[in-house]
């Protein structure tokens, strides 16, 4: 990771992964990726990292006892089970 293009890539990495870059810059990075295996691996594993976090997000569930205490704290117990 020490020639100029690798640095260019490093600075624009997140935007590149998000598809957020200008066409020109994007094309330049694509060209670089063709002959720089290291950057290719960094990009691939970065994408995979983001993918894994997205795929493993837990559903937003409040444990029942936590929810009960929340409603009690706000003095809204009477509404606890009326919505769900």
């Amino acid at each position: 990771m020490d020639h100029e293009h690798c640095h260019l890539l490093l600075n624009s990495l997140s935007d590149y992964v998000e598809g957020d870059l200008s066409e020109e810059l994007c094309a330049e990075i694509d060209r670089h990726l063709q002959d720089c295996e290291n950057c290719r691996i960094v990009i691939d594993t970065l994408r995979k990292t983001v993918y894994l976090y997205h795929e493993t997000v837990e559903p937003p569930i409040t444990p029942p006892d936590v929810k009960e205490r929340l409603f009690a704290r706000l003095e809204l117990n009477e509404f606890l089970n009326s919505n769900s």
Partner: protein
Amino acid sequence: MNKEKARVEDFSLEKLRAGDRAEFALLMDVYSGVVYRLGIKMLDDPQDAEDILQETFIKAYRYLGDFDGRSSLSTWLYRIATNEALMLIRKRKNTPLSIDEQLDQDLEIEKPFQIVDWCCLPEKEMMSAEARRYMHQAVEQLSPNLRAVFVLRDIEGLSTEETSRALNLSESAVKTRLSRARMRLRELLTAYFSERMAAQGVAEAGDD
């Protein structure tokens, strides 16, 4: 995630502002789950997450009158919850990182030093219970500022703009921090998954 986001705009702001308790209970019903999850991701402790949950809705109830409607109600709740989480982290004596280390992490883009292609690992392996635990712990190793951006963007699914409103940061600062957080996590996951690969006896391509 988007389903919940769509639902919040169905709330009547007028009713909420007028102190309609049933409407507020409905808001809590829809949003307690994401606020609790945010607390768990930010502090990794069920008791802290519960405190954040309660404080968030107490403040929301108290300050609804000040809500100006410029951001969405959900972004406003995320903002309160994230502030509560960051305050609680600061209050703790045993923050895992020193202030200096935090600054380094926030300001410097980290050069990747682990170049191992672990993408070929079977998905089953990458999403095992153990791998998930490791991924969760990796998030806890981010500095609080990076963690907040990562949790809002990549766990809660907020847009860059929503995250910038929730954290009172410029959009470019959100992008920079997200990039650093993801790179740091990539580094940590690489350390973990390359070990898994070695254990499996898979050839480590691109290791120089």
